[in-house]
């Protein structure tokens, strides 16, 4: 076995070690971003990352680098299925406040913790279903910041966009999410008394 082959074997093993340590987190992100396509997106991510592994200058940057590649793979998978931003009524979403809507509609008249009761109607799968109604562009910062716990500036680095862009998408994503939560609750019968 020559020195070149040994170096390439070491490189492959370093890559495997990096990816193995990140697989649970990467899967969780992909599942929230592209649902049932998560495994395919992760397979693509591993192949692309392996091809580009020489470009990674320091091992410490590996986890963030992998997540960045994964998100772009998720974009590729989600693009065909996602609703385009132009199909979404942002003006209506901008005016929408879930807090005020719940208070106004008062879906659980005998409750003294109305807003919490509303949230408790949603299981994990309901949350995912609501998220999947959002365009991927706006779903992504919601998932990364609120579900996966990354800082806004870390997300800006992962997406390679300015901080202001992430903040704007986060704001729109939240508004769309709130509006879709209400619509989903109505459509799914979560607000009916007999569903409680």
């Amino acid at each position: 076995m020559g020195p070149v082959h040994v170096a390439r074997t070491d490189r492959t093993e370093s890559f495997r070690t990096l990816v193995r340590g990140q697989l649970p987190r990467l899967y969780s992100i992909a599942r929230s971003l592209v649902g049932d396509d998560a495994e395919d997106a992760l397979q693509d991510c591993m192949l692309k990352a392996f091809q580009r592994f020489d470009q990674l200058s320091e091992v410490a940057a590996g986890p963030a680098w992998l997540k960045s590649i994964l998100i772009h793979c998720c974009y590729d998978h989600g693009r065909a299925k996602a609703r385009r931003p132009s199909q979404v009524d942002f003006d209506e979403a901008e005016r929408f406040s879930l807090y005020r809507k719940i208070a106004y509609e008062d879906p659980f008249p005998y409750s003294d913790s109305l807003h919490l009761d509303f949230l408790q109607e949603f299981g994990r799968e309901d949350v995912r279903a609501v998220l999947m109604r959002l365009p991927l562009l706006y779903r992504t910062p919601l998932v990364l910041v609120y579900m996966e716990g990354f800082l806004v500036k870390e997300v800006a680095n992962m997406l390679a966009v300015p901080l202001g862009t992430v903040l704007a998408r986060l704001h729109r994503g939240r508004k769309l999410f709130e509006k879709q939560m209400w619509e989903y609750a109505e459509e799914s019968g979560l607000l009916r008394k007999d569903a409680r």
Partner: protein
Amino acid sequence: MISCAEAVRQLWDYLDAVLDEVDRTTVEEHLRRCRRCCGELEFAVELRRFLARAGGEVIPTDILRRLNDTLEELGP
């Protein structure tokens, strides 16, 4: 003191810790005095917790095995 509309507009940026010191102080001052906005703040905090609880999905064993198989197939 800033208006309720302005405080609510900045509420999430406040929770996301992206406001500068001046804006953060202004929002906090408003929240100390305004019960209506406190309700919105509590709901926003709960909504953040609610989303955090929905994250962190565990990778199923069969998917983990297939992904590890792919990793093993990569090589020089």
